[in-house]
């Protein structure tokens, strides 16, 4: 079974530019999560999709961040315009619907390392 994949693995952009990160969850996983780890700090939750709907976006830092999950499959996270403090590693995770599968363990992708210069 293929795991969660993320693209790109690394991105280096200049302040003010736009970057779009992509996450492909494990097939059949309704739940999709975005997290961010800023250098040396804890991993912070950004938002949670259930299928195509945003279940919880309380962790999104500001309106420069836009996440979408059209069709309930892959998700994109766009940062526009990027600022220096947006640098970090962005992780995506997916999980099954616990009500139907009995498990809700989150499986993580390898992350996208974003560097804003």
């Amino acid at each position, binding site marked *: 079974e293929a795991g969660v994949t993320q693209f790109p693995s690394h991105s280096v952009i200049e302040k003010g530019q736009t970057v779009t990160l992509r996450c492909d969850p494990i097939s059949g996983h309704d739940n999709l999560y975005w997290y961010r780890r800023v250098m040396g700090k804890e*991993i912070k939750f950004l938002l949670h999709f259930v299928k195509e709907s945003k279940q919880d976006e309380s962790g999104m830092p500001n309106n420069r961040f836009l996440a979408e999950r059209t069709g309930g499959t892959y998700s994109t996270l766009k940062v526009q315009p990027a600022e220096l403090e947006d640098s970090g590693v962005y992780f995506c995770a997916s999980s099954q619907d616990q009500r139907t599968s009995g498990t809700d363990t989150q499986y993580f992708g390898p992350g996208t390392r974003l560097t804003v210069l």
Partner: protein
Amino acid sequence: AQSVAQPEDQVNVAEGNPLTVKCTYSVSGNPYLFWYVQYPNRGLQFLLKYITGDNLVKGSYGFEAEFNKSQTSFHLKKPSALVSDSALYFCAVRDYDNDMRFGAGTRLTVKP
């Protein structure tokens, strides 16, 4: 709000010795606790979780964790460390909305 804390940034252990990576939690209600590991250039990998039941939870790669309600701890342990266990370890708690709240991470270094 649910939260976890990892008091040690770094843990160094000699190969073959037992290892412990500490985690304490703060939750209201019953905690759902997790340990994840991140190897270099890899994503987070699930190790184990505590939901209910036996306080000693066994997970992948020979790791186990003990849930201690009185001490609000969920320390990760392994009886005999391997050099290949060197990685970044994250403790996490699941929030009401099924969102994960992570600790800052502990870097484990196992020396031969």
